[in-house]
């Protein structure tokens, strides 16, 4: 059984149909990278998975439990799916340590001392154990994004959804975030990543999904997608994006 299954996801904003029936499956320990031009519904799709944006139609299962079921405990299920945002969304009134531990205390009901220890461990994992007392506004974008990854990790989720995690970063800060993500993928974390970082995709993706106009155009292994794409649009897009962004990872 796959860890994550999305079936026929539809989402419409007013007249515009952003998602026109997207289905995919993700195995445990797999890293899947979703690519595609801006405005093709990639971010909306991620949000439909954890129900931040409930889909109009279609179903999602996490580890066999239906996330889209009207009677499911969505808060409990969300706690099992980490989400890393493009613009970090750290809690500005909490320092680094508390940003990571607050979910453990409030959602998992962990004791403060235990939450603190676990948070420190996760912050060490992203290389920020020297910034425990710093507040988000005192950190660089790259550091903030690493805190937000630690915040997701600390909840010990079954998978993490990444929504363009490096798109809001200055070029020189992208590397440190990708480095953390590559390490995670190697450690066996299940990841669904929307990104334009082709180097990252090539290096760690088990599967690449190319999305355009609300549908999945093509999906396959990185080798196949980069060297022998079946669909002409896939090749065009990959060429263009590699030219634009280069390969940082």
């Amino acid at each position, binding site marked *: 059984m796959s860890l994550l299954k999305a079936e026929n996801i539809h989402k419409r904003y007013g007249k515009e149909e952003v998602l026109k029936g997207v289905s995919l499956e993700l195995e445990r320990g797999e890293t899947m990278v979703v690519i595609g031009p801006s405005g093709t519904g990639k971010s909306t799709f991620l949000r439909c998975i954890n129900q931040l944006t409930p889909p109009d139609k279609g179903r999602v299962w996490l580890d066999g439990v239906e996330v889209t079921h009207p009677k499911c405990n969505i808060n409990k*299920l969300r706690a099992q799916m*980490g*989400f890393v945002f493009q613009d970090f969304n750290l*809690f*500005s009134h909490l320092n680094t340590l508390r940003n990571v531990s607050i*979910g453990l205390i*409030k959602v998992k009901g962990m004791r403060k001392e235990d939450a603190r220890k676990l948070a420190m461990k996760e912050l060490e994992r992203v290389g920020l154990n020297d910034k425990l007392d710093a507040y988000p506004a*005192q950190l660089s974008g790259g550091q903030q994004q690493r805190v937000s990854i630690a915040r997701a990790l600390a909840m010990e989720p079954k998978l993490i959804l990444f929504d363009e995690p490096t798109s809001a970063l200055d070029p020189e800060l992208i590397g440190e975030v990708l480095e953390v993500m590559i390490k995670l993928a190697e450690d066996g974390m299940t990841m669904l990543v929307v990104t334009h970082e082709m180097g990252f995709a090539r290096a760690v993706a088990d599967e690449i999904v190319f999305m355009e106009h609300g549908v999945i155009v093509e999906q396959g292994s990185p080798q196949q997608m980069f060297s022998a794409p079946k669909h002409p649009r896939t090749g065009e897009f990959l060429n263009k994006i590699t030219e634009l962004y280069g390969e940082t990872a």
Partner: protein
Amino acid sequence: MLLRATLINIELLLALLLLGLLLGTIVALLQVYGGRFAGTLAAGYAWVFRSIPALVLLFLFYFGPSQFGINIPPFIAATIALGIRSSAYQSQIFRGAIQAIPQGQMMAARSMGMSRLQAIITIIVPQAIRLSLAGWSNEFSSVVKDTTLAYVVGLNEVLRHARIIMDRHYELAMLAYVAVALIFLVLTYSGNRSLSWLERRLRIPGLQMKGGTQNT
């Protein structure tokens, strides 16, 4: 005598601020998160009680019920009238503060499994309080002075006492009112100083806020 009467103003001030804080917080949260129906209701409440003059509210809450044989003590009537009025103003201060917090933080809280209420309590409210302080200290200086309006419903507050002094010894009229004026200068000043101290204390490092100094 004047100083002792000032204590009544201070009591009224604290009571009405507290009532305004409680109601104002609820109204603000309803207006932002309450959905269409509760939101409209909250906005209507804020609009109505900001539109009616304080004196009219005082008369309404004091003489209104007594017409039906319900006698509300002046202190209670003044607390309710001025407290409700203040809650309408406070609600708009809090609403602005809540809306100034990036929406992504709510999403981040929900995405880690917090309920809406948990997210509001642990993420939104602590930040909204900080953002409200500047506006709130403005509201404070305005209601400090409003406490003298309770004079009209017969509360034995400081202005009424000055009036009594004048009635007995007309030669002291100037002195009495100057004393009252000075009392309010001190009250407003010390209140605002405490609030700006609080504002500095609660300031989030790295975030520059009005009234604070940057130290990043």
